[in-house]
């Protein structure tokens, strides 16, 4: 399956991936200002920029084949879409037990405690955009959306 790969050598740590992620997961998908100023609570970014200069990279869910979060989920909220391979959290079923956070080896799931407690994670913008918003919004080509075997450009 296609995944998002970080090219840390070109990540400038600007954080625009997070801005575009938040916008994509808000009710105002094409309007950053409204997404930020009119959405309460504002969605958490599902991509995390780690930075210790000069190293920086954007990290998001790896959609593991043998996803530990899916196995560990006590309510079945965390599911892998058999068609696309995307691991997604059905927030309506999520009870906020945070087991997924405990077992995720990548630290790619976050606690969203602002509305209904739910785990927040990358959904590859399934059903939102064709290309994940973080990839489309990266100004420096530091995020790549490609199949595992496709070589880096």
């Amino acid at each position, binding site marked *: 399956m296609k995944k998002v790969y970080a*090219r840390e*050598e*070109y*990540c*400038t*740590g*600007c*954080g*625009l991936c*997070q*801005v*575009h992620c938040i916008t994509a997961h808000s009710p105002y998908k094409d309007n*950053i*200002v409204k997404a*930020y*100023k009119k959405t309460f609570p504002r969605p958490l970014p599902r991509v995390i920029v780690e930075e210790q*200069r*000069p190293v*920086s990279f954007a990290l998001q869910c790896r959609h593991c084949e043998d996803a530990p979060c899916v196995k560990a989920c006590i309510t079945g909220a965390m599911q892998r879409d058999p068609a696309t391979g995307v691991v997604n959290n059905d927030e309506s079923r999520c009870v906020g037990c945070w087991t997924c956070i405990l077992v995720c080896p990548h630290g790619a799931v976050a606690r969203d405690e602002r509305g209904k407690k739910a785990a927040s994670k990358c959904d590859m913008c399934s059903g939102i955009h064709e290309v994940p918003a973080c990839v489309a*919004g990266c*100004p*420096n*080509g*530091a995020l790549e959306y490609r199949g595992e075997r496709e070589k880096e*450009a």
Partner: protein
Amino acid sequence: MALLKSYLTPDFLIERNKDRCIQCRVCVQQCANEVHYYDDEDGEVYSDEMKCVNCQRCVTLCPTRALVIRSSPNELRKNANWTPEVIRSIYIQAETGGVLLTGMGNDRPYPVYWDHMLLNASQVTNPSIDPLREPMECKTFLGRKPASLVFENGRLKEKIPPQLELDIPVMFSAMSFGSISLNAIKSLARAARQEGTYFNTGEGGLHKELYPYGENCIVQVASGRFGVHSEYLEAGSAVEIKIGQGAKPGIGGHLPGEKVGKEISETRMIPEGTDALSPAPHHDIYSIEDLRQLIFSLKEATGYQKPVGVKIAAVHNVAAIASGIARAGADYIAIDGYRGGTGAAPLRIRDNVGIPVEFALAAVDTRLRNEGIRNEVSLVVAGSIRSSSDVVKAVALGADAVYIASAALLALGCHMCQKCYTGKCNWGIATQDPHLTKRLNPDLGAQRAANLLRGWKHEIQEMLGGMGINALESLRGNRLMLRGIGLTEKELEILGIKAAGE
């Protein structure tokens, strides 16, 4: 001693539209000058305008277009003599006692002679050519051409000296690893390969990762001799001896020790952390004969397989100098005009030394023709070639090709803030800071630089077609294709062109 209070005021005003700013802090993350900062207590981003150099990185990356940077509205009393720049310079020198430094090319309002020349187009007779339907040759060759073609048994008798083959008469000018980042050079190297032209190492040596691009590379030998060794000379397609540079004729180069990290130290063959000083003169060249010795040493070293060129700054007497260089055996001469860019130059030198490259080119071409040796050497001009029409005018004036550097850097993202010498280029170009060099992804850089060349090539073909000329080579030195506008008799005479209407 008491500390001096600075009398300087901000050059720029930063306007942040509060209705649009979403406090995402992208600007904070991106400004290497630490202008923007986030205040935790207020939960807001503020700016310290004093440090802003107007590189527009923050403006470009702000996702909501919340930022505008303008010249500061604060004005001193109007004075045509004591302009704000002059006054500022005095404040700076009164505070520092130092030489004023600057980056990029001369920005004084001297006339740009390219803009005082107009191109001809055919009408009715000798009809124009449609480049979309008919082949339009943009290829050119740099190097000595035989005086006449003598055939023997149907074969060319004289052996043609080594030539550089260019698919477009535009090359990337010398910019050293040190003055610009490795990613910037990689971008240019790949673009040069893609578009069939050359990039130039400058006096910084050739980084090991760039050896695969040697075929598209001109290696430079400057006074510091940095990074010059036999494989280096072998790696390039031509060797260029750098005598002068348009931005600072008569001045040497200086890469401060802080920038000489591991990679640069290896490439330049100097110890890490030491200043890379290239003296103003070559200490083995004091005459044309000395230059000839170096030219032939380099030819010998490369088995007479590669053209050897000489780069000089456009200065008074450039025609006589060029004649000497041609006679010394150079295969091409690069003439760099006073608008040429640089990573760092003393401001007063950059702005006041040299002559316009248009005059230099015309004078050199005329002199070499009069002396009957124009065929022995190719001419490359540099120093603020801004567009394809500048290229076409240069060729009509007598150039074989042009070098571009500022235009190439602009293609990579440079915003001409003129602060290259600080090493904090926010666009990842004129810097070695690993946090900043990452900002130029060579995949994207190569694409941008190649796009620029391709765009220019299309336009050159259009212009040639409009003149009814189907090959660039037929335009070379064809000054009848040019007419001067707003020029004095003397200027027209030097340029060797007629006035518009004549």
